[in-house]
């Protein structure tokens, strides 16, 4: 059963490639916007690069999260899968995993290029990827709660942002600090552990709360 769900989710992800590419384009475009808006910062770009990168990742996640359950909700597929599957929890978890694969994971994959754009030194780039791989699961997991609760609204985007952005802040802080520590040649094991801790913790509450949120949203219509 799990295989079937994952296969369906994978095909959905693959067929809706624009849902992956558009947020990525947004990520690079917003970096460009920042570079044009604060030209002075370009001089010392590498000192703000880690924070800028993570801030943009947070905003990009919001875009991707808004679409997380929407199509299934509109088509009625969500109702079906929550009703028919023995353990609806697995459905939600599979969807969160695929959303992460299409957002956090892809961002981590293109992060070295972004890092170069932002003037990060070559030896820090693997650390950037590490911080994104450890931190973005938490964003998808916590974000799924907001996405589930707001999927019933015709314009849920702003409410979604208001709900989940405050909860994203710890990831932003530790993710930024991890890269900064690596830039300064310090040990970054502690930040990496903390990011992993937040992700695991989010795994413990995220899918359950998202499932509760989906049930509420399904009753909403």
């Amino acid at each position, binding site marked *: 059963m799990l295989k079937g769900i994952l296969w369906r989710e994978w095909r959905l992800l693959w067929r809706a490639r624009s849902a992956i590419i558009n947020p990525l384009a947004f990520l690079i475009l917003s970096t460009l916007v920042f570079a044009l808006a604060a030209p002075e910062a370009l001089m010392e770009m590498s000192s703000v690069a880690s924070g800028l990168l993570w801030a943009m990742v947070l905003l990009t996640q919001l875009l991707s999260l808004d679409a997380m359950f929407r199509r299934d909700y509109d088509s009625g597929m969500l109702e079906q899968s929550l009703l028919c599957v023995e353990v609806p929890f697995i459905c939600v978890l599979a969807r969160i995993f695929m959303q992460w694969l299409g957002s956090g994971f892809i961002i981590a994959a293109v992060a070295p290029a972004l890092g170069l754009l932002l003037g990060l030194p070559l030896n820090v780039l693997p650390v950037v990827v590490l911080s994104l791989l450890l931190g973005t699961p938490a964003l998808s997991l*916590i974000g799924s*709660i*907001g996405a589930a*609760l*707001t999927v*019933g*609204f015709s314009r*849920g985007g*702003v*409410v979604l942002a*208001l*709900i*989940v*952005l*405050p*909860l994203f*802040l*710890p990831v932003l*802080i*530790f993710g930024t*600090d991890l890269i900064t520590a690596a830039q300064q040649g310090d040990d970054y094991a502690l930040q990496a552990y903390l990011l992993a801790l*937040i992700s695991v*913790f989010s795994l413990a*509450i995220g899918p359950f*709360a998202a499932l*509760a*949120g989906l049930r*509420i949203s399904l*009753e*909403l219509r």
Partner: protein
Amino acid sequence: MIFSALKSFWHKLGSPRWFFEMSQTWVFVLGWMALLLLAAGFVWAIAFAPADYQQGNSFRIMYVHVPAAMVAQSLYIGMGVAGFIGLVWRMKLTDVAIAASLPLGMLLTALALFTGSVWGRPTWNSWWEWDGRTVSTLVLFFLYVGIYALREAIPGQVLRARASAVIALVGMVNIPIIKFSVEWWHTLHQPASFTIMEKPAMPVEMWAPLLVMVLGFYTFAGFTVLSAMRLEILQREAGTAWVSAWVSGQDPLDLKKGA
């Protein structure tokens, strides 16, 4: 004995009517306590507490700032607990409590931010410092805003109750992580000379009025939340016989006899 009394209290809490009738006394007691404590604390803080040797009289805003921040935080945690109870036991009253705590919590957080800003002007020489506690209070404000926005967006009462319970619970669980991370962030960005805010060993004459003010704010919050809950109950139960009897000034006991 105690357990069964608690159990019966717990079951009775499920009834808005029982709560409405009982809370009449609680509101009365809390209201008077709040009035007395706040009046005494205010006069004590303004007129009798000694001026700070460094900050002069400007530190007196602390007597509003600290209690406001404390109560604002407690109200959010209270909302999380209410959300948990509401999700587990499906008690009607918990959403009434959330609805009543939300505006007060938001207002008190805003008051804490505002007084902090006013206090910062003479002390830190700027209206806004990205201090650790300032930032976590600001985040708290946005946690409140999130619940508020969600509640506004959902039309039905039952679903609104469940959705805000979920998000209040998630927010409460996340508060320790947010606090820890903001403190972490603060130690990284610690501005050099701002150590005045570090808890000094305050003399008794200074912290005693603060204690009175904190108690005053808590009783005031209790009074406000309970009053708002009573109003909310009246609105929600407007169709029932006991509410119309209460509004028209009829003795509910007569109503029982009549029925």
